[in-house]
């Protein structure tokens, strides 16, 4: 026991020797010493107080297991180490059974405690990282705003007075300014989990000189699969605006979250069309509308409604259920 204590102290203090095999060996030693208690001490002496040969030393192995693997393995190994006394000396004596109960509870308790501490520390680390990334983004925002954005705004303002090439330059500056603003406001930097995505951050990326995105300030978390599908639908509708609504058309995207439903309204001020032409486009096999929009929304368990009239643009309303 003394030798094993020294070995364990060395092994658990170094990450290279803190291995699964040593944990198993630790448990085997604890179980063996507990099992040898009655044969070594003699049944009479052992039955005086049911204090095992290693006494409470044997709990250390289940405690390491609880720290390493969590609640259930901690409880099970605690029950095994404590319960071996009942197996070797079968009796209904409460003092004997207490070993099993106490060791199992201690194993489970330490497992719960370590899991709680790990998750709360993980949360704290994430909060620190988020704060740091936001602070850095604000710092970059200030630098870019005072420099690049001012120059782009100047080109955009002065360009039209410089002839056709100036008009082109102004349009490019407007486009780049808008992209830069989207990049600076990118909310995807502080996503809390890889499998959950903030849909407002995803939609924000569509913002440009011809597309305006309006979303609520708070996050709306959806699964990454749902986010991909919603993004593809919005991309397709905006691509249709760019292709069919006319050169001067602008589009507006509004995101709302009502209860368990996500409502995305997409409106443009283009040349418009008859609503039945758009729905029939799907029936006629126009893959974009049929698969990219209607098919995806149907797969998400939602609904897509389109309203359109010649000269009054096209208005989509997408309703998607979310958790």
């Amino acid at each position, binding site marked *: *026991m*003394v030798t094993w*204590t020294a070995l*364990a*102290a060395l092994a*658990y*203090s170094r*990450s290279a020797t*803190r*291995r*699964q095999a040593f*944990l198993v060996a630790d448990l085997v030693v604890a179980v063996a010493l507990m099992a040898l208690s009655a044969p*070594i*001490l*003699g049944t*009479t*002496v052992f039955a*005086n107080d049911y*204090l095992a*040969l*290693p*006494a*409470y*030393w044997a*709990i*250390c192995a289940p*405690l*390491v297991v609880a*720290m*390493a*693997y*969590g609640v*259930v*393995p901690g409880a099970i190994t605690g029950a095994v180490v404590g319960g071996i006394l009942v197996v070797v000396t079968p009796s209904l004596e409460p003092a004997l059974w207490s070993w099993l109960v106490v060791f199992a509870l201690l194993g489970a308790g330490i497992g719960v405690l*370590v899991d709680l*501490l*790990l998750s709360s*520390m*993980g949360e*704290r*680390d994430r909060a620190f990282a988020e704060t740091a990334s936001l602070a850095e983004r604000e710092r970059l925002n200030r630098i870019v705003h005072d420099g690049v954005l001012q120059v782009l705004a100047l080109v955009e303002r002065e360009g039209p007075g410089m002839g056709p090439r100036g008009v082109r330059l102004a349009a490019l500056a407007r486009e780049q300014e808008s992209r830069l603003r989207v990049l600076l406001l990118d909310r995807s930097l502080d996503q809390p989990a890889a499998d959950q995505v903030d849909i407002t951050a995803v939609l924000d990326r569509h913002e440009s000189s011809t597309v305006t995105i309006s979303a609520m300030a708070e996050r709306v978390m959806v699964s990454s699969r749902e986010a991909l599908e919603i993004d593809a639908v919005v991309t397709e509708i905006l691509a249709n605006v760019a292709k069919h609504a006319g050169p001067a058309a602008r589009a507006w995207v509004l995101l709302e979250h009502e209860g368990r439903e996500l409502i995305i309204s997409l409106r443009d001020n283009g040349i418009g069309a008859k609503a039945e032409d758009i729905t029939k486009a799907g029936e006629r096999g126009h893959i974009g509308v049929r698969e990219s929009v209607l098919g995806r929304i149907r797969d998400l368990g939602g609904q897509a409604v389109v309203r359109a009239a010649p000269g009054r643009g096209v208005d989509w309303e997408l309703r998607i259920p979310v958790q």
Partner: protein
Amino acid sequence: MRMQPVWISRRGSTASQVLLRPLLRVLNWLRIALCVHALVVNALRWHEVALAGCWSPP
């Protein structure tokens, strides 16, 4: 349930590094203290064991 010890599965996590190292150190001291306790307990009941004839001192 984890398949590997937390200090391997969450090797990159600061939380596991910061938390587990001191906890294992505490556990090492606990093990030493409980070892001493077990030695004292067994030394105190040595004569009982010898009298019962189950264990003969060398």
